[in-house]
């Protein structure tokens, strides 16, 4: 059991007032708040060891390089990658997906197929559409049912020798559905297709074991796991990373440069052109340490309790409908109230100190499926409490009265 008061004390922002009311932060799906250790680590980096990495012979450069590479090692361990050089620092999930999609431009041919799920974030749709436009490959969609679950029987039918890439999120940002990715990866591999897992919404709730999953790529962002914005991870199997061409040219990613020919650096540097987000990379390690010190079992226990309690309390509100009722889901509740636009509710409860997300959640195909303009999404983190859920429910009731 978590000592929730002790945990909350780690996050200075949580004791803040917003619009004169105590902040209730339920927009964790968009970004998590940061504990003091993470905030301090950013400042400590700039105060003590700021230098460019992988080049200088001087002491600060060595210290910064060591810290950066040690963070890479921490993340390798955390996700159980076989090699540290399979763990690439990126600016975030979106960059990671674009890097991979762009790399496949040199592999795909007209007639090849890319399978994407019906519940993807736009950032896991658009790069693949661009890839298909470039290569003449076809984008096919794995459909979902009314509960917001992918239909595996349809997935099985879509797979064929033409399938070259399957790309799916581990957990849906708009619905909270946990997808059966192990099954999907194994199935795709029977046809020789590569699988990319968008783990952006999963890593705050669980530890992905990339070797056990056997995924070819796994991408996520640091800012959703208590880390800073602007840093993320692309895990790729060594064989795939060697096969894909570099994404960006520049310093760091080369072995030798002449005007006639450039040879590329070894992994991971081949994909890390230019000066990276050094502080971000180092502090991502701090954030992962923090999450592990809280403990993912504890995190899951607390979040499951919040999900169950939140679902129960919200359903007490007349006319409220929850979207995303999959058998396995995380602490995300997407909902609407009959006859009321989600934007109106979001705007009013913001005045009561409550931060939720409203809109299409960058997943318009899901909204089109349910024929709604958007939803209100409350996404809970381990530092949230049942009392906060009570405050939200009361605020929604008040907004509902005002609006109807």
């Amino acid at each position: 059991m978590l000592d929730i008061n002790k945990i909350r004390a780690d996050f200075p922002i949580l004791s803040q007032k917003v619009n004169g009311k105590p902040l209730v932060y339920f927009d964790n799906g968009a970004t998590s708040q940061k504990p003091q250790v993470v905030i301090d680590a950013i400042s400590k980096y700039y105060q003590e060891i700021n230098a460019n990495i992988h080049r200088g012979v001087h002491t600060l450069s060595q210290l910064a390089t060591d810290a950066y590479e040690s963070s890479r090692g921490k993340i390798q361990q955390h996700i159980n990658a076989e090699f540290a050089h399979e763990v690439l620092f990126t600016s975030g999930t979106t960059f990671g997906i674009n890097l991979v999609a762009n790399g496949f431009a040199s592999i795909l041919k007209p007639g090849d197929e890319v399978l994407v799920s019906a519940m993807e974030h736009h950032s896991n749709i658009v790069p693949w559409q661009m890839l298909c436009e470039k290569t003449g490959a076809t984008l096919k969609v794995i459909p979902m049912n009314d509960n917001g679950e992918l239909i595996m029987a349809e997935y099985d039918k879509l797979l064929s020798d033409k399938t070259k890439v399957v790309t799916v999120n581990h957990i849906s940002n708009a619905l909270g559905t946990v997808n059966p990715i192990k099954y999907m990866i194994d199935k795709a591999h029977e046809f020789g297709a590569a699988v990319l897992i968008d783990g952006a919404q999963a890593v705050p709730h669980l530890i992905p074991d990339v070797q056990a999953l056997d995924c070819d790529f796994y991408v996520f962002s640091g800012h959703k796991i208590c880390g800073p914005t602007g840093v993320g991870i692309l895990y790729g199997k060594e064989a795939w990373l060697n096969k894909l061409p570099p994404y960006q040219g520049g310093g760091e990613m080369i072995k030798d440069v002449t005007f006639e020919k450039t040879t590329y650096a070894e992994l991971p540097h081949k994909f890390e052109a230019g000066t990276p987000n050094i502080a971000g990379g180092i502090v991502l390690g701090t954030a992962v340490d923090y999450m592990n010190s809280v403990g993912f079992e504890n995190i899951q226990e607390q979040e499951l309790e919040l999900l169950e309690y939140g679902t129960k309390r919200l359903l007490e509100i007349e006319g409220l409908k929850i979207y995303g009722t999959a058998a396995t889901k995380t602490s995300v509740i997407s909902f609407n109230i009959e006859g009321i636009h989600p934007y109106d509710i979001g705007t009013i409860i913001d005045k009561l100190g409550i931060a939720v997300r409203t809109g299409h959640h960058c997943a318009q195909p899901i909204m089109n499926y349910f024929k709604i303009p958007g939803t209100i999404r409350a996404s809970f983190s381990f530092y949230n409490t049942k009392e906060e859920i009570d405050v939200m429910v009361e605020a929604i009731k008040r907004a509902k009265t005002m609006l109807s």
Partner: protein
Amino acid sequence: MKIKDIQEEIVDEFSMFDDWMERYEYIIELGKKLPLIEEEYKTEDNLIKGCQSKVWLQGEQNEDKIVFTADSDAILTKGIIAILIRTFSNQSATDILEADMNFIDEIGLKEHLSPTRANGLVSMIKNIKMYALAFNAKN
């Protein structure tokens, strides 16, 4: 009435409210009272795409004035556009183009003026002024 006088009138009305809740309740009331736009004008062309709620705006020439009608699927947005319509409908294009928007700040809706705000107030104002520009160019 001149735009400036209408704006002053609106500022006066809003000054009676002590807190955000009363202000929002009034905006909701204005939204509910907004005369509905003719269904035929709820077209893709008339749609102002804010990030979160839809707004349809239609402008028509009535002698030397422009008459605006509008609708939105969100009631707060509808209330805000009702305020804009009250201010700008039945005014001349030149007056619309010259009008300043400080009154939005004065009625406590400044936060809605941020260009990143998802209700598209900035786009609404822009579209109203575009109608006026087009009107002047045509005449």
